[in-house]
């Protein structure tokens, strides 16, 4: 079931559609059933609020009803965060976790800082994974190298590493990949625990 009122003014329809679009956009990360349920409830609310206004001006009544309900980007963000976090399920899905933190962080500096920290952590995990993979195809350009003068490189390099000592040798790739996996899992488990508190 769905409701869309029949307006007399074209601009009223446009205002209504624009508000519903904003609702849809705010909750776009939820599943289809959740989105439809929320939209239907808010449409029902707006319809009643709008219908009870006493002014003869349809546009004015509609805008008043929407102002009373509020900005969907504000009042729906916690629903979006809760639903996204709930949707992480059994799989360690950093995308859902980070989305949940993002929605929460718009009102909380602490969670915003958390988002940045975990973002850096996931990026580090990705870098380790990339080094581990590139090492397979280009061993002289990826890994941990120590030069005779004491200088060292950890990561990817375009410089010559012929004179450098390849610290981990053949173990570089599996080691970096292992670190990437451990880091990824640790971050995901920690983030999920923190956000459930």
């Amino acid at each position, binding site marked *: *079931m769905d*409701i869309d009122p029949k307006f007399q003014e074209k601009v009223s329809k446009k205002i209504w559609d624009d508000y519903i679009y904003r609702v849809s956009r705010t909750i776009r990360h939820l599943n289809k059933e959740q989105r439809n*349920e*929320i939209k*239907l*409830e*808010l449409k*029902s*609310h707006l*319809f*009643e*609020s709008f219908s009870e206004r006493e002014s003869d001006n349809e546009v004015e009544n509609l805008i008043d009803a929407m102002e*009373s*309900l*509020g*900005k*969907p980007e*504000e*009042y*729906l963000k*916690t*629903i979006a965060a*809760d639903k996204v976090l*709930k949707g992480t399920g059994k799989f360690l899905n950093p995308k859902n976790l980070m989305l949940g933190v993002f929605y929460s962080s718009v009102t909380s500096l602490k969670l915003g800082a958390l988002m940045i920290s975990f973002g850096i952590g996931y990026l580090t995990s990705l870098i380790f994974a990339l080094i581990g993979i590139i090492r397979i195809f280009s061993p002289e350009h990826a890994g941990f190298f120590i030069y005779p003068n004491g200088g060292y490189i950890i990561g990817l390099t375009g410089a010559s590493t012929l004179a450098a000592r390849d610290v981990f040798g053949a173990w570089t790739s599996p080691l970096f990949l292992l670190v990437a996996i451990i880091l990824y899992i640790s971050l995901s488990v920690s983030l999920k625990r923190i956000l459930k508190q």
Partner: protein
Amino acid sequence: MDIDKWESQVRKGVLEFVILLVLQRNEYYGYELIKRIKELTSLDVSEGTIYPLLNRLKKNDLISSKWVEFETGVPRKYYNITEVGIEVLRKMNDSWLGLNSSIQKLMVE
């Protein structure tokens, strides 16, 4: 200190308690619930904020909901308190009375 901001935070904090108290009396749909809360309390509730709270209460099994379609064709989502919600409300009542009593003592001293 911005007293309006403090007051707003206090109101937000008690709103879940208020919702359960009102739903204990009768089942309501969202728009009706907001109006009832405004009638029964001095809380100037921002309409949109009620929905995340209802969502959270439902997620925690304190309330349940059902859709009812009317002749007008506009469906309404009615909420009512569950057995779990009644039990939690009882505990909230006790906590509230305890807190109120402590604050009253502080104010008198």
